[in-house]
């Protein structure tokens, strides 16, 4: 019911597999709550208007833009940020392959890419290049030209399927 204009909202939700409770000004976006009130700065602040994808997090397993979600909206839900991708001190296979293949340069877009790729591979363990392109279409990268990102997702997918996979040989300007 109506709660009046309050200085602070107080909610509980699950964040990276842990129960958290947090108080914040009610007009704050999830992005601001994560970065400013929960000190999880892995989620990046980009365009603020839903155009760049760098603030992507998973809510109940689906990729959403945390700049267009109010903090109040995740009460009782399950939120995953890039900080929640590593398990027991081991990086997620996507994090490994992004690092190994140079799929991150300046790195600002990387957390968003990692999370949409994680959503994709959980739904579709063997995506085609076209399906990967489609899934990552909401994320902008101004450094890599995307090819290395696609290759990193493909390699991580293969490893997660338990296949012995090596990175594709690097090709520069058409020469191996």
């Amino acid at each position, binding site marked *: *019911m*109506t*709660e*009046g*204009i309050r200085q602070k*909202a107080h909610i509980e939700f699950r964040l990276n597999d842990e129960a958290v409770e947090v108080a914040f*000004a*009610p*007009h704050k*976006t999830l992005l601001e709550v994560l970065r400013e009130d929960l000190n999880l700065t892995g989620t990046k602040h980009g365009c*603020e*208007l*839903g155009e760049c*994808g760098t603030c*992507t997090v998973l809510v109940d397993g*689906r*990729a*959403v*833009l945390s*700049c*267009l*979600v*109010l903090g*109040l*909206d995740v*009460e009782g839900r399950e939120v995953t940020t890039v900080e929640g991708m590593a398990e027991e001190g081991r990086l997620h296979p996507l994090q490994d392959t992004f690092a190994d293949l140079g799929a991150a340069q300046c790195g600002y877009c990387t957390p968003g890419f990692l999370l*949409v790729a994680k959503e994709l591979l959980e739904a579709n363990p063997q995506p085609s290049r076209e399906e990967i*392109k*489609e*899934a990552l*279409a*909401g994320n902008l990268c101004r450094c890599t030209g995307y090819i290395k990102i696609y290759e990193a997702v493909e390699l991580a997918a293969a490893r997660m399927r338990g296949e012995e996979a090596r990175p594709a040989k690097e090709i520069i300007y058409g020469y191996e």
Partner: protein
Amino acid sequence: MNRFEWTDAATVHEAISQLNGRAVVKAGGVDLLDRLKEGLEAPQRLVNIRNIRGLDRIEEGKDGLRIGPLVTLARLSEDKLVLERYTALAQAAGRAATPQIRNMATAGGNLLQRPRCWYFRQEEFHCRRKGGERCFALDGENQYHAIFDNQLCAIVHPSALAVPLMAFGARVVLTGSKGAREVELERFFVTPEQDIMRENIIAPDELITEIKVPRLQPATRSFYIKQGEKESFDWPVADVCAVLQTKGNVCLKASIVLGAAAPVPWRASKAEASLAGKVINEQSAREAARLSMEGATPLAQNRYKLAVFEAIVRRAILRQASS
């Protein structure tokens, strides 16, 4: 963003009872948060309807398809029933915006978006639609603006779903403090001549509580095409839905609606009439496509849209013949 009260409504009735004064409805929140951040609106209260149960169903009954207003674009684009029978609707949902936005945005919210005209979205431009004196697009940057009904205000209607829904003859159920009413989508949208300050007839205390798509006639197929400047992540410069009922390769009835063409989803009546009773082929499709642009009044920078529309209208018609 301004400070606001927050109401988490558990039922439709509870939401409606809170919709007074300067209150606005929040569902997916995609367009609303954008408007709040741009300073276009400063509501006193947000009424969150996202957690109301039962408003997120897709069901097929005797009289057709019923879509809850909270169904996301992602779900519409993936739903087997929608994909199989109401193909154009799934295609439109799946081509809109980006995967993340499709995970958030709802069907009801998609129909109720405010215009994306850059003059309307900028706080600094006090245009006619915001109570000002002039439309800045008419002699400004108008490459993405309307080519029909653009004398007073040249916005294009921003809803991707409205294009197939109107072509299917859908209706919306609006529920408010005085009860529920059912309106054809065709009469739901408002032209600038009717009221320049709004895009539809919904009252401040009403919610869209259902979208109804009538049962399709036998041998009816639908196809949606969106043409943007880029392959992904873009608003359409032109989009079209063609719903054709056929017998063999003869078209019995055609319903063709254009998006990004006018301040409301735009029915191409002459194109529809020209196809009825004709064999669907290159020639009849070309003629219908040409007629779909008859009466257009392009602005200084958007004449190119005519050729784009002609191409996608023709292709959407021919896809039915080949499918």
